[in-house]
């Protein structure tokens, strides 16, 4: 699992890191119980200040995506992937916002115009819709 940070992007680095990790958790690429690297390690590897990564982790924790413990460090939370029957409207909204943030960060990182990004989302939604109705 690789995290990228574009220093030239208008999206702040902490948000880039947060969005990518949240996206990985949302898609199941980072399963529950996965231990994330220590703040200092990830900060050193990315060439960022430790506070930047600490903020990303804090936001992930406040969103309920990860848990932080003194001994085990930061791990992916167990209750992240709920099925449709047990998830609440608030959970759905939160996951939607997470996905949108991740998409926006990726779009900015790749330098894609807003119109093209929205067109891609519309096309993808239409594709999913046509597949489900078929």
């Amino acid at each position: 699992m690789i995290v990228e940070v574009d220093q030239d992007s208008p999206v702040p680095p902490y948000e880039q890191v947060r969005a990518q990790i949240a996206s990985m958790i949302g898609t199941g690429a980072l399963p529950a119980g996965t231990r994330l690297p220590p703040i200092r390690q990830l900060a050193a590897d990315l060439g960022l200040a430790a506070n930047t990564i600490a903020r990303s982790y804090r936001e992930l924790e406040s969103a309920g995506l990860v848990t932080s413990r003194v001994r085990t460090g930061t791990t992916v939370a167990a209750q992240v992937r709920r099925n449709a029957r047990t998830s609440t409207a608030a959970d759905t909204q939160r996951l939607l916002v997470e996905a949108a943030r991740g998409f926006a960060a990726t779009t900015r990182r790749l330098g894609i115009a807003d119109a093209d990004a929205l067109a891609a989302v519309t096309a993808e939604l239409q594709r999913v819709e046509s597949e489900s109705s078929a």
Partner: protein
Amino acid sequence: MFVMSTGAIFFLTALLAALAALLVSAARSLRGPVSRRRVEEFAKLHWLPVTAGNGNQIIAYRATTRRWRAAGLLLSLGVQAVAGDGLSIQFWWVLAGWFAGAIVAELRVAHLGRAPRAAASLARRQIADYLPAAGRWAVPAAVTACLVVALTEAVRAHTDPDQSIDVGALALWTVLGVTVGMLTLASQRYVLRRPQPHAEPDRLAADDAIRSRSMHVLAGAGMTLVLYCVLGQLTAAGSLTRPTTALLLLGNPLAGRVLAYWPWSPARPHLGPHQAAA
């Protein structure tokens, strides 16, 4: 008049020749190029395929570490020659100089360069990825032995004042042993935390092998030095037996050498299935 036997002359000549060879080798290490054999030895120890991408990385690492270790060793020999009495050379100080050079080298080793778009793996790096259990426990065990000996001998000196224990020297060796141990552990931690930005798989593999090599060398040399401090403690306490002397004087550096050059393939959790296949 003092007359040397033929055997003694032969022994002395061999000793001087070995010392001269060591000095020449160390002096050459300060500037000379890194041979292909050295690179192959390094690659073999860590099951690392040498590629066009990571070859220079290995050469740069070997050159930096060799230069600083040799500089430490030569400095130690120089200091002993100037400050010591005559030609006596203490192996502890030679190893201590070399070890100091090894630590400085780790601070000077260049890490992987970052691309304009910084990338990093989300896998945790742990010492267990780079060192076998024996390597991880060697230094803490040696420091524990140092503290146990200090405590035992201090109690003995307290309970039986007739014992001829040099308490000052005992304390000095204890402080030295614990300091060397802590320095070794801190250096290993530094090596572990050295930045590792994401790069091509062969360069990442070389970076892991470099970390593993550094940690092995630090563990082997650190353990040997701490156990030499234990030897110093026992000498100060006057409780050195012949088997203990043999063990600490000969077995200890041999064990350190074996540990430092123990073949080990570092775990590479940052490589996903796609990259590992590449």
